[in-house]
């Protein structure tokens, strides 16, 4: 996955904003794709920020988003965009999806794959200085596969290797 540095900055800027009741914020990253024989390249195109009103109050999780947010993302998938759920853990170093993340994403992302099966969809998790991503395809593992590398394309370039 390749993410231009200015786009990453705008994602962080949005995700770091406090929410009236949610501990975390969520957004969606739209990606273009370039399938190849050995690898599929994902190019981050646009970040979709979710308005405060599209969150559901649930203090058992970091953030819960409502149906309208999911419909917004689904419309983009149907329009031919790869959709990546994005959120952030406020910590340093390589982050890890929590058990709640894994459970919820395993339910959400395959729905995008059913709607737009020709594309790769997934989830991107950021920390203060790093990130990881998981990708789902129509016929793949129900828990997705790690994105092998995330390149932040700026000056300088940054590489986040997917496999530890």
């Amino acid at each position, binding site marked *: 996955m390749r993410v231009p540095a200015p786009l990453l900055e705008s994602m962080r800027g949005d995700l770091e904003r406090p929410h009236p009741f949610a501990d975390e914020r969520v957004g969606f990253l739209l990606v273009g794709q370039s399938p190849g024989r050995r690898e599929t390249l994902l190019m*981050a*195109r646009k970040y979709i920020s979710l308005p405060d009103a599209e969150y559901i109050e649930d203090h058992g999780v970091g953030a819960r988003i409502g149906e309208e947010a999911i419909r917004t993302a689904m419309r983009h998938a149907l329009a031919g965009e790869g959709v990546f759920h994005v959120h952030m853990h406020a910590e340093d170093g390589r982050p890890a999806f929590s058990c709640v993340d894994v459970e919820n994403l395993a339910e959400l992302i395959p729905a995008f794959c059913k709607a737009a099966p020709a594309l790769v969809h997934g989830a991107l998790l950021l920390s203060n200085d790093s990130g990881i991503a998981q990708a789902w395809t129509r016929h793949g593992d129900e828990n997705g596969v790690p994105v092998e590398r995330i390149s932040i*394309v700026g000056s*300088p*370039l940054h590489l986040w290797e997917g496999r530890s």
Partner: protein
Amino acid sequence: MTVDARHSRQDFLGRDAPRLLRTLKVGVVGLGGGGSHVVQQLAHVGFRRYALFDGDRIEKSNLNRLVSGTVLDAWLGLSKRYIAKRAIRRVQPDAHIEAYACRWQDKPEALSSCDVVVGCVDGFAQRRELEAAARRHHIPYVDIGLDVHQDPNGVQPPRMSGHVILSMPGQLCMQCMQLLSEANLAKEAARYGDAGIRPQVVWANGVLASTAVGLVVDLVTGWTQSLNPPVYLSYESNVGVVQPHPRLPHLPKVCVHYPLQGAGAPRFVVL
């Protein structure tokens, strides 16, 4: 941590530099006067992964500038790819090198898998195509070019000038920087078949190649902490000066030619 003795004099590039130089893949399109310099320097710096594109063979007329090309190479008619690979392997024997005789357009996956691309091509149309491909795949693109302008009246001495440009995804492109324009592309198309022999010399190519490699290393390592695109350097060889192009302060702030939403394979949208 063991520092490779070969690179002990460049540890100012940062602790992570050796890993980055080993890991990142550089594409070099054109292995002539400029590209042969670029490839040699990249190898010395420590890059290990390459995708090289050039279908030509060395001729005697290339010997004034094709770095590491020899009289024997020209007599044998070796490919420029072979010469470039040889130059790399002399310094990086375990480098992973993909070398293509075809046009890069015929091996798009090879180009798109690169982390940085350096274009050492002739012509505005080639530059535009390469930059467009790099933008589609969010790849930083470094372009170098040299030209010699002769006074049609034969009064003034020739003027040799060149450029090095860094085109970054989401930032100003070569059209924004006015190196490429519809006017100069049209003029070039009208001259097709009558391009003539373009003067080229090793020292000027060397200046441009060294500047380009310096940019690539800074892009990869961040060692100067001051690389701030857009980067458009102009080279006035007659006076030996490389400096930011005077046009820079007057350029637009945003690129309208390559929006980020255009990245990736084209897709059909229902209207």
